């Protein structure tokens, strides 16, 4: 289905609950020739909806459009300066060919536990803006996922924007551990930020959903001082549940997460907020 405008797209999504919006295609078309069951489904082509492409700045926010790509953000100097984790994550998504087509919104609604864009957006307290024929709904990204591939998006809703509050960050780091430097799915992803709003520790690939690690955030808020990575295991066990899968093992993921946090926050541990 080829809508000419956002309202038209919303109409189509409302009329066919099984229709799937498609933007850059970098998730939907993977292995397309052998995924025959996917051929029979109905898609709503979002690509001509130019209104959704640009990102914009207000006094308080950076707003990514529903079709803003990774490359759009890498190119945007102000975004690189103010939200360096966005560019850092974007550069580690696949390679240039994927960055040129993949959208932040697509990454959110694909809901992979290993997503690259979601952790940094969540660590920046992003809000997902959903539109449907029934109106607008805004969901904080850290409340967006309820289970593996389950999210607060109804099938008639479209992500039209991602709002990111502009804050002064005293600390921000993003680490993606893949099996190689590019074109790699994360085995462990971590985005950690600190601002006047407090600590955000977001982990990927270590649970059925990408999520904030509240126990770890509490440790940071309360000035806990670990002696070594192992001291973080109890909080990690509360926050995440890594598994063995085709890419890595639970025990590796757990250890890596502990080590990244321990070493990456060397200067931050043991200081009260």
């Amino acid at each position, binding site marked *: 289905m080829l809508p000419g405008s956002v309202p038209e797209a919303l109409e189509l999504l409302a009329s066919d609950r099984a229709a799937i919006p498609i933007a850059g295609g970098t998730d939907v078309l993977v292995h397309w020739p052998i995924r025959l069951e996917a051929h029979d489904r109905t898609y709503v082509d979002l690509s001509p909806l130019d209104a959704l492409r640009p990102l914009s700045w207000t006094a308080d926010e950076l707003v990514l459009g529903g079709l803003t790509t990774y490359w759009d953000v890498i190119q945007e100097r102000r975004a690189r300066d103010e939200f360096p984790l966005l560019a850092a994550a974007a550069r580690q998504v696949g390679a240039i060919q994927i960055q040129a087509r993949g959208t932040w919104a697509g990454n959110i609604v694909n809901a992979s536990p290993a997503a690259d864009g979601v952790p940094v957006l969540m660590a920046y307290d992003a809000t997902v803006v959903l539109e449907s024929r029934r109106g607008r709904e805004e969901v904080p990204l850290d409340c967006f996922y309820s289970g593996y591939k389950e999210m607060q998006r109804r099938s008639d809703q479209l992500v039209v924007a991602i709002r990111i509050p502009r804050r002064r960050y005293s600390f921000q780091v993003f680490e993606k551990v893949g099996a190689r430097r590019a074109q790699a799915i994360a085995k*462990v992803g971590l985005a950690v930020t600190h601002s006047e709003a407090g600590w955000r520790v977001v982990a990927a690939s270590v649970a059925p959903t990408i999520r904030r690690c509240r126990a770890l955030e509490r440790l940071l808020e309360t000035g806990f001082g670990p002696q070594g990575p192992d001291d973080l295991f109890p909080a990690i066990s509360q926050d995440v549940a890594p598994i063995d899968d085709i890419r890595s*093992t639970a025990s590796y993921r757990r250890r890596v997460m502990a080590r990244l946090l321990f070493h990456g926050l060397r200067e931050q541990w043991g200081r009260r907020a």
Partner: protein
Amino acid sequence: MKRREALTKLTGRERYVDDLPLEGFLWGMTVRSPAPRGRIAAIRFAKGVDWSQFVVVDHRDIPGPNVVALIEQDQPVLAADVVRHVHEPVLLLAHPSRDAVRRAVRSVEIVVAPEPATLDFRVSPDVLKHLKIEKGDVARALAQAPVVVSGTYETGAQEHVYLETQGMIAYLEGDVLVVKGSMQCPYYVVKALQHALARDESKVRVIQTPTGGGFGGKEEFPSHIALHAALLGLKSGRPVKLIYDRGEDMAATTKRHPALVRHRTGLTRDGRLLAQDIEVVIDGGAYVTLSPVVLSRAIIHAAGPYACDHVRIVGRAVFTNAVPFGAFRGFGAPQTQFAGERHMDVIAQTLALDAVELRRTNLLREGQTTATGQVISDGTDRVAVMERALELSGYRVKQRDHATFNATQATLRRGIGLATFYHGAGFTGGGEVALKSRLRVAGLPDGRVEVLSASIEMGQGTLTVFTELAAARLGLAPEDVTIAEADTARVPNSGPTVASRTTMIVGGLVERAADDLRRRAGLDDAAQGDAVKQAIRRWHRDHAGGTLVGEATYEKPPGIEWDDTTYRGDAYGAFAWAAYTAEVEVDLRTCATRVIDFVAVQEVGNVLNPTLARGQVQGGVVQGIGWALMEECKWRDGAMANNQLTNYLIPTSDDVPSIRVAFLENPYAHGAGGAKGLGELPIDGPAPAIVNAVARATGADPRVIPLTPERLMEIMEERADVRRPA
């Protein structure tokens, strides 16, 4: 000379099998066994599909024996009653629509009554080949050795990931079956087609299309696809195209043999080798394919480029119900040399010796003999090869720098590792004689020459090197030399494009055939350039419509003697020698290893084309880096579960440093232009050099590749656990 077909490839004008225009063809696809072992109980075709629209082929459609002819006659073209591995071909389907045939493949159920499958080669009792090399008296020498160091090492399978997947086209031209496609060995395909289709050689024509990478993966496997496409073509009377999807290619075709190697080494306290007792086991998978020859090369290289009076190498290849393993660059030598070179460092560590000095003590000197008793007298200074690698890499300085670095860095560790190794070029022992390779160089009416051989171009530079050799021999410009398409209707059997033989051996036939052409044109051996062209043109004027062709057949160089029953003698006409260093940085947070510098020094006779030769080394090294660190086959029922490029990882440009290459030249008298074979050598060295470096960087003692971050972390944690108080 620049690669002669470079611009064609750079502009996208080179046409691979799937690029060729083809009228009225059917897409072919394969229906495969879902089980690793069992009897085919039923084949169910789903209702709701109009099967009359499809061409369906099963084993009953095979005119000749249901066998893909290779070394043994054990592998069926299509499984009849039993299956021996997951993905074994059972049925073939064809239809004008690729989408329709994909759906149809999903709609056929092969029902297998399962039987217990053997999936662990380490304990498989089913030996497909047994070989032994013996020199001196190992038992006595070990018993008397002041020190004995043991070690067990393992290497994993490796998938080729040629960027062009496998594919064939088959059609009839009159009563001649024509098969075109991506392949390394047109005459292997001819032989397989003749045999299973009960066709005379004159009724089979095989044409190699430009081949997008092979690395051994297109040595024997193309015969299967050729037969499949041919069967569909013969049954339907229409041209058939059969192209493998990447996932299918990765899951269903051959891979490098997994190996387990055990060393027991006797030495003096100052590190001189007294006895080498080596056991080699390789997983052949469900059928014989080329496993006996892989085993042969594996054991011949197992003792390394060292002098030792007492050696015993016992090797066995075993059957399992895995997808059959096959040729992959190196062909057994990378596996046993990983073990041998890692073991050298383990010895050094155990005896508190310097790893460089240990090698210096034992590297073969002029006049010493290998494990098979071959006298090495090629004049190469193997110690100088090693010294050059140490010099270029700054080995000693780096070792000191790393000590400081490692003491001051919180989470990074660096190390540098060395491997010294070798690779025999050409077929083992009497193999080249058995091949009886032939080649022709024709003189064309316009005075140019045409080289006719079955040696194909798959990126290693055959077209360019043959052009250079013929041009140099006859004093012609490269534009005056043309290389014929590898079409078995036109070209003689110059042997398979494997075993690092194409330049050294087949190139030698180019030179001799050019000489023969010159003589037949009435010239003496000194004639060059314009004189040659004019003589050829004159010959054609005097013999209108005639063919002027020079020929050459392989002749064994003098002094090469090999005994296949005792496995003693001169295993190869020439060995190439090498020393590689790898500098690594390990991130202790993730146990990920990054290669930050790599030096590859080798002696390969004369280097005929520096750009091509350097490219071969760099390409082989990066494949070795991948095999050592990130290429892991994850198995389910003996088949690859991670058969996607997302989950089977080969290095990207950002995963490897610049590979620094140097050649020491020592002309080999019996190789074309003084060259030795070079294609496979570069993949023998990187894995042990890297793992040795990681051992130095971290203090861990890895013995298995791929050394993934998970594996390294486990090793380091185990070691830490052992040292932690209870």
